[in-house]
C-alpha cells in the first residue's frame, strides 16, 4: 500500500486518481502509524515550502525517516522534491529532509514566474524514469528550483538548468507533476508503483 501524505499542501485528488489509474493501492493519510505500515510513500505538495512544517507537527517526519531508512521507495512530487534537499529560500528557517545536498532557490528576474507548462527533460539512467526518453514533455508549475547535483536523473532548463528528477536508491523526487503529464507521467507513476 502506498501512503500519500496529506500535510495540507494543496489538493491530492489528482495524485490519487493517477495512482489508481496505474493500478496502485494508495491511501491519503496524515497518520504516522499508517505511514509505518505502508510499503511506499508519496509526498506530494503544491504551494509553499513552509507547509512542510506540518510534517514535523504531525510526527510524520520521524515515520518517513524510519520508513526511508528501512529501504521502502519514497517519491516526493513538486514541493515534495524540494523538501528532499536541505531547504529552500522560500522558507529559510525550515529545514528540509536533507537526503540531497543543496538548497532550492526562486527563479530569477526577467522571466515569467511561476514556471508553468510543458517542458522537456534530459534523462539519465534511472529506475523511476525507465522507458522515458530525453525530450519527453512533462507538466511543471513552480516558482522555486532545485540545483543540479550528482543524483539528478533528469534536468530541465528554464533560464538555468535545474533538477527535474532526483534519485538515490529508494529516495526519489520529481519537480514536475506526473499526475498531470499525460502518458509520460502515468508511466513514471507506474514505474514507482511497481518498485519492490
Amino acid at each position, binding site marked *: 500500500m502506498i501512503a500519500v501524505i496529506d500535510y495540507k499542501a494543496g489538493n491530492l485528488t489528482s495524485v490519487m486518481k493517477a495512482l489508481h489509474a496505474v493500478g496502485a493501492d494508495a491511501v491519503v493519510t496524515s497518520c504516522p502509524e499508517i505511514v509505518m505500515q505502508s510499503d511506499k510513500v508519496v509526498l506530494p505538495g503544491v504551494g509553499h515550502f513552509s507547509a512542510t512544517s506540518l510534517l514535523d507537527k504531525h510526527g510524520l517526519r520521524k515515520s518517513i525517516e524510519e520508513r526511508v531508512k528501512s529501504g521502502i521507495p519514497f517519491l516526493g512530487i513538486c514541493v515534495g522534491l524540494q523538501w528532499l534537499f536541505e531547504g529552500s529560500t522560500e522558507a529559510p528557517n525550515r529545514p528540509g529532509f536533507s537526503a540531497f545536498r543543496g538548497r532550492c532557490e526562486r527563479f530569477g528576474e526577467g522571466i515569467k514566474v511561476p514556471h508553468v507548462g510543458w517542458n522537456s527533460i534530459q534523462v539519465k539512467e534511472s529506475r523511476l524514469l525507465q522507458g522515458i526518453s530525453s525530450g519527453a514533455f512533462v507538466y511543471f508549475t513552480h516558482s522555486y528550483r532545485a540545483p543540479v547535483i550528482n543524483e539528478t536523473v533528469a534536468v530541465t532548463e528554464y533560464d538555468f538548468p535545474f533538477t527535474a528528477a532526483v534519485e538515490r536508491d529508494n529516495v526519489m523526487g520529481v519537480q514536475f507533476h506526473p499526475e*498531470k503529464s499525460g502518458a509520460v507521467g502515468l508511466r513514471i507513476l507506474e514505474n514507482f508503483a511497481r518498485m519492490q
Partner: protein
Amino acid sequence: MTLTKRIIACLDVRGGRVVKGVQFVDVIDAGDPAELARRHAEAGTDEIVLLDITATHEGRGTLIDTVERTAKQLFVPFTVGGGIRTLEDAAAIFDAGADKVSINSAVITKPELIDEIGSRFGAQAVIVAIDARRAKSDNDPLANAEVFVSGGRKPTGLRALDWAKEAESRGAGEILLTSMDADGTRAGFDCALTARVSEAVQIPVIASGGAGNSDHFADVLLQGKADAALAASIFHFGIANVRELKEEVAKRGVPVRLPC
C-alpha cells in the same frame, strides 16, 4: 529544453453538456464534456478549461458531477471556472478533481478571495480571468482598456492593466485575458492588448477571444507575448485539429509540445 507555449481547449458547459453560443443567441449542443475533454487531451491539447455558463444555484450540483466525471480520465491540467464566489465553492471544485479554478466576477467585489484560495490551495491553483474591452475614443485605448463583468455587459471602472497587477500581487498564478472586442469574431486575438498585459505582470498570461485559425495562435504567442492561448468553438466542430494546429504554429517558430 524550452518551456513550450500552451494550446488550451475551453469547454463551455450548461446543464452538464458542452454548448456553444452563436452570437449569444442560438446555443448548439456540442457534446459530453468528459468525452470531449478526453479526446482533446489525446489529440494533444495541453490543458482543458471547463467553464460553467449556467451559474445558477441548481446548476451547481450538476457542475460538481460534471467536473468529477471529466476529471476521472483526464491526466493533463484541468481548470474549472464559472460562478465561483467563495472559498467553499472553490474547495468543492478541487475536491471534484480540478487542478485550478478560474475566478472572475466575484473577485472584482471581493479581491481577497484570490489570497484566500491561493493560501489554501497554492498560487498555481488560482487563475484570475479578466474580460477586457479597449477604451473607446481615448488616446491610449490599451492602457485604459476596461474590465467588464456579466459576460462583457457590465463595466467595472477598473483598468485591465491595474487589475492584472493587483491580481498578481494578491497571489494569482496566471491571468486569463479575454478580449471582449475580439471574442466571437474568429478574426484573431487582440495581440496588442495581450502584449500590454503580459508585459505588465511577471505571471503567465493566457490569451482568449478571437481564435479563428493557426496564424491567430502564432500571432498572439509571438507578438502578443502570451504564454498560452485558449479557444473553444474552433476545436469542437473539427475546424481545427490540435495536432495540425500545433504543427502550423511550430512552423512560425513558436515552441510547442510536439509530438504530444
